[in-house]
């Protein structure tokens, strides 16, 4: 059940020149939130910037009602958010999304992420690990300077693979190459992915070819975040080009089965 909560900002950390982690006290939202859910953040009390910013949950401490989000400064909204001072209250709407990451029926999880898409995968990996799942994590970044959260993800992984496209750090190439190898060795029951569109498309294709259950966390330009404006449309797989039908990321997702969307 989504709620509006004025959450106190209790911590802020700059991870990269344009990437920030914010820590908030949001007990009401955290209570019901699950890995994969997202939050609509109001960055201004005025009407400019107008819309809330959808940001995924990076980490939660349920006992203490702590919520952490990581975001990249992309425009004026995220810039304002990055400048909020400790102690201020931030207007949050959440948890949002009706389908989170689901892993109960699987034991060997492959978690794959790229670039700034890795953030929502941390809570998933952490939570699955706590539930005694075997969690293999594959993260890909463009080059060394973009690598974030390496240590954090390592701690919640049984096996951890890091790649950079240009080989400037860790393994050279794409994370999906290593995922494919592990699939072929029978190490993967299900796949969880979040990242740039080309990566998601490649993971989707691989999962469908190998017939492995796969969940994709999707993004689309969003209005309300709760399912009323029907803005964040994503095409339903198998519906004809001339008469397409759509899911909505905020309502049917944000986590979709790979076989049900055309991205």
């Amino acid at each position, binding site marked *: 059940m989504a709620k509006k909560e004025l959450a106190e900002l209790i911590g802020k950390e700059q991870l990269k020149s344009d990437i920030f982690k914010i820590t908030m006290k949001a007990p009401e939202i955290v209570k019901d939130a699950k890995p994969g859910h997202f939050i609509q953040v109001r960055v201004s009390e005025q009407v400019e910037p*107008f819309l809330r910013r959808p940001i995924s949950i990076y980490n939660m401490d349920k006992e203490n009602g702590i919520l952490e989000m990581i975001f990249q400064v992309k425009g004026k909204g995220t810039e304002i958010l990055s400048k909020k001072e400790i102690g201020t209250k931030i207007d949050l709407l959440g948890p949002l999304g009706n389908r989170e990451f689901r892993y109960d029926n699987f034991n060997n999880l492959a978690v794959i992420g790229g670039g700034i898409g890795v953030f929502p995968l941390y809570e998933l990996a952490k939570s699955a690990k706590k539930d005694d799942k075997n969690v293999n994590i594959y993260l890909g970044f463009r080059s060394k300077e973009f690598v974030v959260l390496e240590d954090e993800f390592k701690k919640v992984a049984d096996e951890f693979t890091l790649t950079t496209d240009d080989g400037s750090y860790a393994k050279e190439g794409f994370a999906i190459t290593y995922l494919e190898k592990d699939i072929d060795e029978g190490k993967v029951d299900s796949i969880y992915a979040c990242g740039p569109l080309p990566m998601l498309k490649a993971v989707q294709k691989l999962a469908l070819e190998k017939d492995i259950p796969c969940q994709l966390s999707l993004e689309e330009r969003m209005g309300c975040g709760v399912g*009323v404006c029907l803005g964040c449309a994503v095409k339903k797989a198998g519906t004809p080009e001339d008469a397409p039908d759509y899911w909505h990321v905020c309502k049917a997702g944000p986590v979709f089965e790979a076989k049900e969307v055309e991205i």
Partner: protein
Amino acid sequence: MNTKINFAGIEMKNPVTVASGTFGYGREYSQFFDLSKLGAVITKGTSLKPRSGNKPPRVCETSSGMLNSIGLQNPGVEFFAKYDLPFLRKYDTAIIVNACGSTIDEYVELCKILNTLDIDGVELNLSCPNVKAGCMAFGNTYEGVKQVTSEVRKVLDKPLIVKLTPNVTDIASIAKAVEDAGADGVSLINTLLGMKIDIDKKKPILANNTGGLSGPAIKPVAVRMVYQVAQAVNIPILGMGGIVNGEDAIEFMLAGANAISIGAGNFIDPYTSINTIDGIEKYMKKYNIKDVNEIVGKVEMN
């Protein structure tokens, strides 16, 4: 203090409604507050048959507002009658169905069905800027509006409100067409046609290239148009366009709106409509106004 109004034959406990396309069929926001607090819920634009809407991206933010090109995605009137209407009826609020179509026949067939349902009124959508056929194509001429409204009037006994597009030269003449065709009320404004360009890709952000602008950015245009329409017709006016609080609502009422709608304001805060009701009451207390109807049209022009 009286906040009750009778709008075009529809009893409302207050003049605050939620605008079509910004509130779905009520379920989503019912998790935040009791819908019975609202004067009325105006549903998502509903058509005779289901519609799947436009390609994404469908929305983008603009200065103090947003553009949308949803394309009237909706599950159709049959689905509404079966699943959404019974849900909405659990609340003590008026239900107004926003009705859209591509042809006059479609509008008429749809309104024949709506006439048989347990709803309080119909808002005829002659103003959606995001679909190829119907809607705004009818809504931007006196003749078009009069023709569709007259045909619908023949089959609809329930209160009939017609929603106008601001994308016209003379909004007052269009409102006159609504009145001349025998409708009970008029609502305005729908969104202003706009466009936003991604300067890196050199392409419009919306897949449909253009979309409807809403939010506080359009409020002064809407207030001006409500005033102009109020001078031209005697039927009640449902005013909307960028309202996010009680002060905004009062502005519309002073300009001549008998009731108001919260639109994109719902997206920035689910409680915008509720806060607007409180804001109107605060204004009434401040100026010792006993009846909310007394505010309507009281602007004194310079």
